């Protein structure tokens, strides 16, 4: 045990904590990009292929809905393990940042798809009809009406997604991805260094608060209703 401590925390642990924080940010950041890249198109498809949608396609809608529900019903920890062979094929490794980001993305796409879907459903049908009556193509309706009008809702949905992702990233980290979750388990759980555990918790709380605040602020700024 070190003699000098900051509120009980051994200063020699600080570089590890900073590294872990950075790893978490990287993991979450890359995952968010991947999740948005797939989650937004998925949410759009769920809406436009539904009955009465601008590209109505009942069979496709049913299949997508089923897959999304299937994905969401898997506990993350099981998905994480089950995906190991796929992760290895796609990312070339199952550990480190690359190994952790892949299952995070896969696990969160269905969730994000639903968030996007519910944001898009808030857009008044009348606006879509007005655009169609003006001669808009389905693509123009999606980009210039649906996504644009739903932007505040999309930001709120993304905020919720990022916050749950931070929690999941701790789990992914613990199975070899590094980051704050990994750190908390290695020091806090396995070596009973409670101060390290508390420090990681404080950092996580600050992250969550900041993201929520930023998301709320941005959504309110862009909401012109």
């Amino acid at each position, binding site marked *: 045990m070190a003699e000098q401590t900051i509120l009980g925390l051994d200063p020699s642990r600080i570089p590890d904590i900073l590294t872990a924080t950075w790893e978490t940010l990287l993991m979450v950041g890359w995952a968010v990009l991947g999740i948005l890249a797939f989650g937004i198109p998925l949410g759009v498809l769920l809406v436009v292929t539904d009955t009465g949608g601008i590209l109505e396609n009942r069979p496709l809608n049913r299949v997508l809905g089923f897959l999304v529900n299937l994905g969401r019903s898997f506990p993350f920890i099981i998905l994480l393990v089950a995906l190991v062979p796929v992760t290895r094929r796609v990312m070339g490794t199952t550990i480190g940042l690359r190994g952790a980001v892949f299952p995070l993305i896969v696990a969160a796409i269905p969730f994000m798809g639903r968030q996007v879907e519910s944001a898009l459903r808030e857009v*008044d049908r009348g606006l879509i009809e007005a655009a169609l009556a003006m*001669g808009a193509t389905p693509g123009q309706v999606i980009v210039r009406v649906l996504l644009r009008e739903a*932007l505040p809702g999309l930001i709120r949905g993304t905020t919720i997604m990022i916050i749950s992702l931070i929690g999941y990233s701790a789990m992914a980290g613990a199975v070899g991805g590094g980051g704050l979750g990994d750190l908390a388990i290695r020091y806090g759980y396995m070596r009973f260094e409670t101060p390290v555990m508390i420090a990681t918790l404080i950092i996580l709380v600050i992250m969550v608060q900041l993201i929520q605040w930023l998301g709320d602020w941005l959504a309110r700024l862009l909401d*012109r209703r």
Partner: protein
Amino acid sequence: MIRVENLTKVYTTPDGRQIRALDGVSLHVRRGEIFGVIGPSGAGKSSLIRCINLLERPTSGSIQVDGKEMTRLSGPELRRERRQIGMIFQHFNLFWSRTVAENVAFPLEIAGWPREKIRRRVAELLELVGLTDKARAYPAQLSGGQKQRVGIARALAAEPKVLLSDEATSALDPETTDQILALLRRINRELGLTILLITHQMEVVKAICDSVAVMSQGRVLEAGPVLELASRPGSHLGRMLLPSWNGLTPSPGSSLVALTFAGQVALEPVVTRVARDHGMDINILAGELDAFGSVPVGRLLVELPRVGEELQAVLADLSARGVRWEVVARG
């Protein structure tokens, strides 16, 4: 300009019931006129107007806009045609995330106009509807009447041949309604734009329509120039416009006659002249003076102390003076 023939629209509800919203509707909207469709709730008015630009696909029948058969167009052709047909809505349907100017620019953006040309056209339109100072405001900051003026500017942006209006004034108070109607009238006159509007407000028909169709239960009951329909004895429009004369009975030896004076006659003392010429007293039981656009229309219910051939002579005289009549009851 718009020719609808034998149009039928059957909706199938999720539980498999069939609803015949339009049942063989035909009408003809002439170039440059304001054509109103009036009828009670559920008559099929919205279905009709939504079929014209194919927001709703007709079950059968034909729709021609400026000679083009709408029901046979391919996707891209239909979109091109829709750019020629402006539409305004009861609830305005403005894009909340866009400023007034950006709303008006929307149809031009999707049609691929260059930026500078859009900017000029938008300025022109805002000037037309009197909203130049609101260009940067968002719809949520506008009153109902201002919102509808943005809707109108947006509908006119791509220089359409036809404007469709689905209850454009139904969500507005009477004063704002008058302003919007005046604007539509002005646009119709100045730009020569053909307007098809649907409404359940007789005020709208009276104020600005040249022609009208009366709809009920998916059918057109009657259609024609407003003045002619209003003064045609026994017309649905006439009945909707006027107090009902039911329950009155004439004294023996006299007849109850409803008189309609349209245009200049409404302002002339025809009744007293006829009374004098025929040496009789005319008893006026009810009456009103109304205006269609700028044309005055008077309606009177009178009791004439005449029956049989003597009555016919008076009626012939009335006809000769340009008064339309309907014998309501004979004593």
